[in-house]
């Protein structure tokens, strides 16, 4: 159970100071050339004041777009391998939306369901999330259809909900409590407010459990090829998505030394599943688009007992041809099995 407090606007300054004094880097949404993006900040004044979401997701702080997995040097008849220790900086993510806070759980599911990924884990261990409830939403949002909500505290160590004069602060985890303990005076006792009344209204768009149950039966449906007809097969959706975790491993080397890098990848790319023989199990874009939907809404629930989508709508906003995921899911939910 979360403990609730009041945090005034003015006290944020001191909170940021206390976090930085504790050696933590603060990452928050900032305005940059007309875009909202995540960047390191020192004071609350630098944080974007009015934003829906950042374009890219916060996954970068734990799963960067490129990272080294190992390196080596080569000499005749000899290879010296060097393990890589991930650079993990104590970080506080400030002001990310509840959907994105929740998304770290979906990444964790893949990175740790069996073998454990030390690169992700090293960064997550050092990460604390101060989420910020949404007071507005747009047509792309559908968090409430996938078990989340504009004021959902899942994944946040502390969740702030804006209210008169400051925030309602829910301290949800031990990591949250540790932050509170850095500046206990700032957190004034406060009782619950009606969060639903303050935060955005996001209507439920489709019945997700029913959709998940239905998906295995409509794998061969025309609906996937039809929807994918306008898809241009780029990776914008996957790269901005807070839960998309698929990656590529690439070698970069010269004759004497080299390194192995992990890079973001996307199931939308033709190359993703292409065999050296030229055979491709997902030959057409319809099959690749279907994989995206099924991975998130069928395979994730089956394997990890959770969804691979938090309904943030980033993919829809980033898509050059307006593939609207919510709309496509509503359509799929209506397909006759």
């Amino acid at each position, binding site marked *: 159970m979360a403990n609730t407090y009041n945090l005034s606007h003015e006290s944020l300054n001191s909170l940021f100071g206390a976090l930085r004094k504790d050696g933590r880097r603060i990452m928050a949404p900032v305005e940059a050339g007309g875009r909202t993006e995540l960047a390191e900040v020192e004071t609350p004044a630098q944080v974007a004041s009015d934003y829906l979401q950042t374009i890219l997701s916060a996954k970068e702080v734990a799963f960067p777009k490129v990272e080294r997995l190992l390196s080596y040097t080569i000499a005749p008849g000899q290879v010296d391998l060097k393990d890589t220790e991930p650079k993990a900086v104590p970080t506080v993510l400030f002001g990310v939306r509840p959907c994105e806070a929740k998304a770290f759980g979906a990444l964790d599911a893949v990175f740790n369901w069996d073998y454990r990924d030390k690169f992700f884990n090293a960064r997550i261990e050092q990460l604390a999330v101060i989420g910020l409830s949404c007071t507005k939403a747009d047509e792309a949002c559908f968090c409430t259809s996938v078990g989340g909500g504009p004021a959902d505290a899942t994944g946040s160590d502390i969740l702030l909900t804006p209210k008169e004069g400051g925030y309602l602060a829910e301290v949800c985890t031990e990591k949250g409590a540790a932050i509170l303990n850095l500046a206990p005076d700032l957190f004034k006792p406060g009782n619950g407010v009606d969060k639903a009344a303050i935060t955005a209204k996001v209507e439920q768009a489709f019945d997700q459990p029913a959709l998940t149950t239905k998906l295995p039966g409509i794998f061969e449906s025309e609906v996937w090829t039809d929807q994918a007809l306008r898809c241009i097969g780029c990776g914008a959706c996957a790269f901005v998505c807070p839960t998309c975790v698929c990656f590529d491993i690439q070698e970069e080397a010269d004759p004497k030394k080299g390194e192995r890098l992990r890079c973001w990848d996307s199931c939308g790319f033709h190359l993703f599943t292409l065999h*050296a023989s030229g055979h491709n199990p997902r030959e057409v874009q319809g099959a690749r688009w279907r994989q995206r939907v099924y991975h998130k809404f069928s395979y994730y629930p089956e394997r990890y007992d959770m969804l691979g989508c938090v309904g943030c709508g980033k993919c829809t906003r980033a898509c050059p041809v307006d593939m609207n995921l919510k709309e496509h899911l509503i359509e799929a939910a209506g397909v006759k099995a």
Partner: protein
Amino acid sequence: MSEKNIYLPYLMRIAEITEESPAVKTFRLEFVDEIAAQSFDFKTGQFGLYSAFGEGESTFCIASSPTRKGYIECTFREVGRVTAALADKEVGDIVGFRGPYGNVFPLEDWKGKNLVFIAGGIALPPLRSVIWNCLDLRDWFQDITVVYGARSVKDLVYKRELKEWSERPDMKLVTTVDPGGETPDWQGKIGFIPPVVEQLGLAAENTVAIVCGPPIMIKLTLPVLEKLGFPPERIFTTLENRMKCGVGKCGRCNTGSSYVCKDGPVYTLAELNELPAEY
């Protein structure tokens, strides 16, 4: 106190190279690190990721039998960036290996049964491991038959073991090449695998079939086996979806909800029938 790096390979020294057929080689690999050599263990059916340092990693099954300790073997065809770099290596060179990964052939379940192995082209490697494993546990099983076909005589891999197997009294080896692929002194059969299997008149009763080969061969052989009375639960095959991580993370090897690197590469036909054909 960091965790283990699951992407870090073992260093392996190439102890022996066999040219199997044009563009196909077998490496015998020994662990550079003694302790790793001692603790390493695998089961037949499993695969690994082999590094050519400088070029990257490639997925091959472990083609040797777990009953033969101290080394592993892989057989690969030169088809792309990594396999070309591996093909350039010489005895004594260092490569990398991560594994073993994936599931296994359920030998325990096959105890007391007849086994028929059917392989086409370069697909003998995944079967070589299990065939040797079964031969090393010979008294577990009844009759053992191996049907192996390739496009032409020069495309047959493992000529050494083919000779050994053909001379063994406790098993039956049938080799075949596609029509036109025979040489004047060819002793085996001439014909495609599916009809050759059909002609053998195999008894499906109490028999397990293990089939590996190019998709077209598998596609045409399965109906023959079904016609002979093999139930899908007793037909095994392996899948080779593109892989990067081998450990269920990179997200590309799945066919439907099944991750070939974790839930495969060994599947029964019954299992495949439940999955979409994304392979």
